[in-house]
């Protein structure tokens, strides 16, 4: 991994983020240091309130750190957003019910001013990429939850951002669908070489997908462990029964427990 880190894609140095609430300030992130290299698949795992989603939102310039420095492709998150550096996949697919799948995917393209022809080409391409070929003319309600989430991933991919930010994208789906989509995300990552930042609650999901696992703990939100995964890039589903996998999962669990210990 080290050789790909010439220019970090995401670099956080001493990031602090304090929310001002009615009950006084809440420290959502405390002294977060993290470097993510190009092409890495980094997962953020931790209990609710550990700041994993807040950190992802800060990368997307949806939240603003109150201290430290955070850069995306060497720029501020706002500048990176203007350069279309990332696509963001939310927990809910959030497809517009009045648009077909194809029109939903071309929504960001319309906003960014791509030509009609190019919109069509790109929609076709990303539909292939998430294996929804031929579903462009369907409306969202005609698709299952898993397919809708795939369409929302396609939408995030449509404008060719190098970074994919995913906030518990499969959290609302059942285990079986989730397993399949995890496999597909890995395939997608292999094929496109994108840098993916992925927030999850699930230890197996984090270990299965990631090259780097960031374990976080709450009050204040902080990083308790960063694990570089020794698993190979090719990951069949049964890798989850391998010794290496179980050892990493164990270390993640330990990290989560340690974070809770000092409550």
């Amino acid at each position: 991994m080290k050789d790909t880190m010439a220019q970090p894609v995401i670099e956080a140095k001493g990031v602090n983020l304090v929310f001002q609430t009615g009950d006084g300030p809440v420290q959502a992130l405390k002294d977060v240091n993290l470097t993510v290299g190009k092409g890495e698949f980094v997962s953020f795992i931790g209990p609710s309130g550990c700041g994993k989603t807040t950190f992802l939102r800060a990368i997307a310039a949806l939240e603003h750190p109150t201290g430290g420095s955070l850069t995306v492709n060497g720029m501020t998150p706002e500048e990176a957003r203007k350069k279309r550096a990332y696509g963001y996949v939310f927990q809910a697919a959030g497809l517009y019910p009045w648009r077909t799948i194809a029109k939903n995917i071309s929504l960001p393209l319309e906003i960014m001013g791509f030509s009609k022809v190019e919109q069509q080409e790109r929609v076709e391409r990303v539909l292939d990429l998430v294996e929804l070929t031929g579903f462009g003319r369907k409306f969202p309600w005609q698709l299952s939850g898993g397919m809708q989430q795939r369409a929302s991933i396609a939408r995030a991919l449509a404008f060719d951002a190098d970074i994919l930010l995913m906030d518990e994208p499969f959290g609302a789906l059942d285990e079986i669908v989730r397993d399949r989509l995890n496999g597909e995300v890995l395939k997608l990552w292999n094929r496109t070489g994108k840098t993916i930042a992925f927030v999850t609650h699930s230890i197996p999901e984090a270990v299965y997908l990631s090259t780097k696992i960031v374990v976080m703990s709450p009050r204040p939100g902080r990083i308790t462990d960063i694990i570089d995964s020794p698993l190979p890039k090719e990951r069949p589903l049964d890798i989850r029964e391998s010794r290496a996998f179980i050892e990493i999962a164990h270390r993640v669990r330990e990290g989560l427990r340690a974070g809770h210990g000092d409550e």
Partner: protein
Amino acid sequence: MKAGPVLGVLAVIVALWYAGAVWLNAAWTYDQAARNGTVVTFGGLLADTMAQERPVLPPPHQVVAEVWKGMTAYNVTSKKSLVYHGYVTLVSTFSGFVLGTLLGILMAVGIVQSRTLELGMMPWAVISQTVPVVAIAPMIVVLSNSLGFGDHLGVSNALVSKTIIAAYLSYFPVLVGMVKGLRSPDQMQLDQLKTYNASEVQGFFKLRLPSSVPYLFTSLKVGIAASLVGAIVGELPTGAIEGLGARMLIGSQFGSPIIVWAALFAAAALAGVLILLVRALETVVVRRMGVRG
């Protein structure tokens, strides 16, 4: 089978109505009998209360007969035709509805986009609806007659005043519904647009406006009925000789409740038809927007 409950309720209403007609019209029958020195039998009472010329409460068949006569007995352009009066009311209902809807949508857009406009306009919009329309209608009539907008527009001043009154009543439900509809997108959807670096205007047209469509139609159904009420109220103080409202006024001035009731029924039927029209439009739009159902 769906019609069952509706017809059941209708039967009860009709039965109560007939009973009420006998009860309320009996006084006249007894008066007449006392004057003529005759005795009223039960059968005579029933027959007489069903067929008085100026009943206190006209029984349903008299009203239906009057409506039927009003619709078929005269040329539709005649001042005696209910179709003619209905048409006059319909025109001002529509013009008021269109004006009110546009006004409501524009105000809602302003209120959603600007906090200042919300603080400045919303209280006045609410206050406007607490003023009784019967109080404000005569003033609107007088003002539009003296300002003579209609003369500039090439329409009657009566139409202008009725349009304004109908719009006054119908803009409010549209305003309230549209404010709610334009604010219906959730935070996640708004954040998503932010990640695309979308402008306010793009967010408005691509997300807020389409999201508001279901709310708009709910409001339009309330709004069109309110417009009809406004148009009719607008016909009362105008000294108008046209329209269902004028018909009601004439009926009550000439002591002929049957005419009032017939006009009332025509207005109710008109309201029903208008709401069905809005619903049909809704079905078409919703289907074109691809939403199930």
